[in-house]
């Protein structure tokens, strides 16, 4: 098990509010191995970013990890203090967010920002760090590096800025990259360039990647495994192929059916009735039960869980007791 880079066990994130404690992430367990890309999908508010932020140690108070552990290559990181976490972030975990400008300082030339970061995490001198910065810029596909290295962030296009952010995330050769919607703000042609870049880096450097996105197409072509979140919980986790072709959780089935096809004409898209519950109104038992056409008495009482240590599984009573829901069937 030595190639497990990220090991999250029973993670629970809470937000204490005046009206009570909200649970944004509820009992999430997952692992990512060396060189593996784990996709995280789910609708808005499902808890994808909160999971990523917990791993990065960037939860905004009063949000807090209430239960669970996070290990990075065997070292526990969820209980580190701010300084300890700061050392891990940047050096051992890189972060890429949707808006590249959150990671770049608009007042400094990109080259200087890269050099600073490299010097912070390595013992290279200024000249060495500048050479390394140029190498990284070339590696992420910035053309004419000599001319561009002294430009400011606003002088780059959105796609080029995101490349710079990836270069920044790579400065310290991190073991893990958490990428939260890295291509959502970009055009399709640029999006494909960035995901191809992430895939190549992951393959060549053995970096583990957590890729948060709402785009199932991107997941299908980029990730090795995928975790589906619903109302703060894991609904299903497994290989991309299994989840796309043989989804087991009725929510995953519904999700797949609701995506318009590029190849076929369909008169009507499949619909999941209703909407995801708010954090203060999560139903008892399976959180999906009010929208699920298979829901039975057990679903309204007991919370289904993915068995411990499972790398594949669905948090669904129906799926766990042997019946599989196929894609053609109405959810």
């Amino acid at each position: 098990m030595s190639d497990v880079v990220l090991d999250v066990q029973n993670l629970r994130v809470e937000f204490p509010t005046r009206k009570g404690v909200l649970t944004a992430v509820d009992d999430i367990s997952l692992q990512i191995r060396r060189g593996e890309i784990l996709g995280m999908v789910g609708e808005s508010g499902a808890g994808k970013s909160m999971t990523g932020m917990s791993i990065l140690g960037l939860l905004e108070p009063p949000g807090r990890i209430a239960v669970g552990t996070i290990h990075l290559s065997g070292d526990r990181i969820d209980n580190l203090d701010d300084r300890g976490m700061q050392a891990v972030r940047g050096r051992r975990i890189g972060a890429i967010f949707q808006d590249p400008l959150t990671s770049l300082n608009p007042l400094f030339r990109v080259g200087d920002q890269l050099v600073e970061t490299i010097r912070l995490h390595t013992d290279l001198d200024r000249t060495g760090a500048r050479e390394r910065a140029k190498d990284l810029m070339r590696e992420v596909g910035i053309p004419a590096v000599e001319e561009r290295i002294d430009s400011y962030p606003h002088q780059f296009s959105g796609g080029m800025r995101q490349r710079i952010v990836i270069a920044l995330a790579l400065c310290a050769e991190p073991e893990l990259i958490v990428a939260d919607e890295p291509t959502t703000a970009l055009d399709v042609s640029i999006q494909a360039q960035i995901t191809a870049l992430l895939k190549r880096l992951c393959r060549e450097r053995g970096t583990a990647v957590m890729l948060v996105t709402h785009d199932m197409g991107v997941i299908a072509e980029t990730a090795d495994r995928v975790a589906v979140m619903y109302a703060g919980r894991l609904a299903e986790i497994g290989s991309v192929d299994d989840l796309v072709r043989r989804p087991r959780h009725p929510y995953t089935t519904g999700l797949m059916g609701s995506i318009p096809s590029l190849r076929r004409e369909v008169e009507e898209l499949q619909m999941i009735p209703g909407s995801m519950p708010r954090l203060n109104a999560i139903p008892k038992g399976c959180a999906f039960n009010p929208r699920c056409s298979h829901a039975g008495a057990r679903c309204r009482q007991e919370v289904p869980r993915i068995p411990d240590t499972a790398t594949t599984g669905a948090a669904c009573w129906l799926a766990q007791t042997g019946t599989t829901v196929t894609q053609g069937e109405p959810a």
Partner: protein
Amino acid sequence: MTLRQNAILEVDALERRFDVSAPWLNRLIERKPRRTLRAVDGVDFVIKRGQTLALVGESGCGKSTIAKLVTGLHAPSGGKISFYGDRDRLQMIFQDPFASLNPRWRVARIIAEPLRTLRPETPAAEVSARVDELLRTVGLAPADGLKFPHEFSGGQRQRISIARALAGEPEFLVCDEPTSALDVSVQAQVLNLMKRLQKEMDLTYLFISHDLSVVRHMADVIAVMYLGRIVEIQPTADLFDNPLHPYTRLLLDTIPDLEAPCRDRSPMVGEVPSPVSPPPGCSFHPRCPLAFDRCRSERPQRRASVHNRRVACFAAEEGSSDVQ
């Protein structure tokens, strides 16, 4: 021409330029010239009554500008828009259902507003009955009329926008990225609703999206845009079966396909150039694998003989006889 007989909208050589020059003093001091951005640069298409024409293309290609020209929010700098319907029955649905709903108004008042504008003399009881009916039409309950927009989810808010648009008894709806801010499962609800309403009320849609799979699902005819121009326009099935323009082909080859995932897809090279100084000739030539000399100096025209099946590309023109 049978096709034009039931046309509801005809757009002809439409242009919209924006002045993006630096302020006058800066221009004087730094000796910078005036700069013009051609957001829409000679666009034409026809929409038939009861049909959906989709505009698709990457960010900044001019889709929203066309929407604003058609709805009259912008004035054209050139060309002509002929609308053969009732201008008062043209409505618009925007991308962000929250920004476009007044947060201080109850939903019933929001929905009633276009109705009151259209027919100010309508008795209050009739207005409220109509609002209840509209709420039911879009899958909400009459009781929801008493709530405020923030009490609804994104998909529900977009339903409220649709109910509001329907209150104006539209015959023509301009929909600018109506589901782009929504989750796929919610998007499915809104798209199904829009299709159903189109059938029931014989609505015509100008449907804007950057998502080719959404456009495939919704449109009868698709116009692919690049840098302010339509590079190709075809009936939906034909566009997917036989894309003619190199940009369309690359786009179709680039987008991830859930049903046939390709894990080593090679992405399109380069980026969309600045619309302030677009490349000469065919503006796609710096990224086009088929570009030859003529493409760098001469601008390809879409051949105007047949409507709704045209391509602006020298290679496609020379290389295929199936372009009519």
